[in-house]
């Protein structure tokens, strides 16, 4: 088990490195860290997308504080934290505190005019869309810099309940990041999800920055622990690596990923998407990697994956082997846009993953 988890951690780091290279072709991941700038892209309202820190990070910044979806690679945590604080500060400047001067002889205007804006509110929550290190590497530092909502019985029973942001994830993500007692975990306990669920979805128990937040499990997609996050008020979906605008999806077969799970996840999101006008805008989709998207982009991606899946399935039904399916070049029409070839992932391995997760298992008919 330990070997599996260590392998998974190593894989995650390698994946993070690969994504870093994809966005900044020169040098190692350390060099990338040193030169790479974050790109903060406005999405809707209080929601922003941060690119350049590994996997995309989604930020909700507002009166309730900061809500993150994913935390990027560890080496970028300081910059992500700085960006989140700037966004929170910006939100505070945009919406200054409520004016309480009226009706009290003791409330003069001079006091608040000295500096009407308080310090940025902390990170309250981090959601991990899955366990890979390019999406969870910043958990430890970012959670430590934050402070979740707590009080009442919880604060009374647990002295440190309010220290750090809560980290929310599907249960399998915690399983991948932790280890049974006595075993060496692939990530430090401070990076682990603090709140998990194992059913279809989880709803945050209160609005955050005006948004109802729903965390939806997408079974057996990129991994066995993927979630989609939906900010219902702002109308923003966060897909994790079920959908990305850079390459064919990475299907982590060793950790439960399947092509059909990814397609189902895309269709699940398309069920939610409502375009603003002429099939663009409206519900925005933050992909795991690459540019900000909407339902039309997601539909193109779903179409492509479905077509490739159908081609593979047809050849498998004819009894063709993996080598024969590879030789058929079932992705040739999409390779110039979505093809990939690096140490971690390649078009060939994508086809292998498609084949493996579609082909009948040995001994089954």
């Amino acid at each position, binding site marked *: 088990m330990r070997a599996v988890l260590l392998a998974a951690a190593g894989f995650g780091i390698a994946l993070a490195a690969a994504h870093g290279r994809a966005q900044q072709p020169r040098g190692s991941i350390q060099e990338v860290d040193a030169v790479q700038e974050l790109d903060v*892209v406005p999405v809707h309202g209080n929601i922003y997308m941060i690119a350049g820190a590994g996997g995309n990070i989604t930020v909700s910044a507002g009166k309730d504080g900061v809500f993150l979806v994913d935390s990027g690679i560890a080496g970028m945590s300081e910059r992500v934290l700085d960006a989140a604080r700037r966004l929170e500060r910006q939100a505070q400047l945009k919406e200054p505190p409520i004016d309480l001067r009226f009706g009290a002889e003791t409330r003069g205007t001079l006091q608040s005019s000295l500096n009407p804006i308080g310090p940025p509110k902390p990170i309250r929550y981090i959601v991990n869309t899955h366990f890979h290190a390019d999406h969870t590497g910043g958990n430890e530092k970012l959670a430590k810099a934050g402070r979740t909502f707590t009080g009442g019985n919880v604060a009374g029973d647990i002295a440190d309940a309010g220290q750090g942001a809560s980290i929310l994830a599907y249960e399998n993500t915690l399983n991948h990041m932790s280890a049974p007692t006595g075993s060496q975990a692939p990530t430090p306990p401070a990076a682990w999800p603090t709140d998990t669920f194992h059913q279809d979805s989880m709803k945050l128990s209160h609005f955050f920055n005006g948004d109802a937040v729903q965390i939806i499990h997408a079974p057996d997609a990129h991994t066995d622990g993927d979630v989609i996050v939906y900010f219902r008020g702002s109308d923003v979906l966060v897909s994790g690596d079920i959908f990305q605008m850079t390459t064919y999806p990475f299907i982590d077969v060793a950790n439960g990923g399947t092509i059909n799970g990814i397609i189902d996840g895309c269709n699940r999101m398309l069920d939610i998407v409502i375009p603003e006008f002429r099939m663009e805008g409206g519900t925005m989709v933050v992909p795991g990697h690459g540019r900000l998207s909407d339902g039309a982009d997601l539909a193109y991606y779903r179409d492509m994956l479905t077509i490739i899946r159908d081609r593979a399935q047809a050849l498998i039904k004819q009894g063709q082997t993996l080598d024969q399916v590879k030789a058929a070049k079932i992705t040739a029409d999409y390779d110039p846009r979505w093809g990939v070839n690096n140490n971690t992932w390649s078009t060939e391995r994508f086809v292998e993953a498609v084949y493996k997760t579609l082909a009948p298992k040995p001994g089954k008919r």
Partner: protein
Amino acid sequence: MHHMSHAALPAAVVLATLVGAGGFGGHAQEYEVSTASRGVDLSGEWTPVREEDNTGNTELGDWVGIPMNEAARLRAMAWVASIQTLPEWQCRPHAVSYISRGPSQLRISKEVDPVSREVTAWHMEWLRSIDKAIYMDGRPHPSENAPHTWGGFSTGQWIGDMLRIHTTHIKEEYLKRDGVFHSDRISVNQFLIRRGNYLTFLLVEYDPVYLTEPLIRSTEYQLDAHQNIPPYPCNVVEEVDRPRGVVPHNLPGTQQYRDDVRDFANRYNIPWDVVTAGAETMYPEIQDRINAARAKP
């Protein structure tokens, strides 16, 4: 065909200008660029006269004149028109890469700074499309992580009386309505030349994914003072009753994939290796191959 003779001259001038400038992308400094308040007034209601290669009535497998690569051809062979009955495909407008090729009327209006009276943006709206802004105020194009739209993000500059529009951030879309696609990495330069009541609209399209050379197409519009582009509402409906998740396409090896896409080639007796010759089909020499093939017994 009085208008066609008018069309030829400016198109030739534009091409000579572009060739002389050594290319289209990233060479703005080579032009003598005027300020935003110069140029000619393009605003008005314009109706399409016609374009030169019958884009609006595309036939299955008609890929001549498109510098498409092998991947684009394979994708076109797998394409089925029925995909456009999917809910996510209904109500889409034509993208900027195609809309001026369709039979859609065009309205051009200008956005004027109330103080300086400079034109800060042009707006183009085609029937069944969306408002497309062309910014003249010098704002930069968005980052590579910004979303893409059907209209893309456009900036303009005057080259004499010709408006050059550079558009990026365009969604993936078809170049012709028979499955010939460009990618979301396409960029488009448009050149607008007004001559009285006629407007020449030139498209130069660059797609590193599916095109081996720039695709150059032109359309003519005529001013129509009685035109008013009506609203064009659209509702997504169940066009085809099919199981959830089905995406129509031709599987390799099927009759549709193998034979039906040869419809255009068979109908006009054009050799298949000519239809699939990509960039070669843009040049006059392709006629020799067609004639040679037809001459064979």
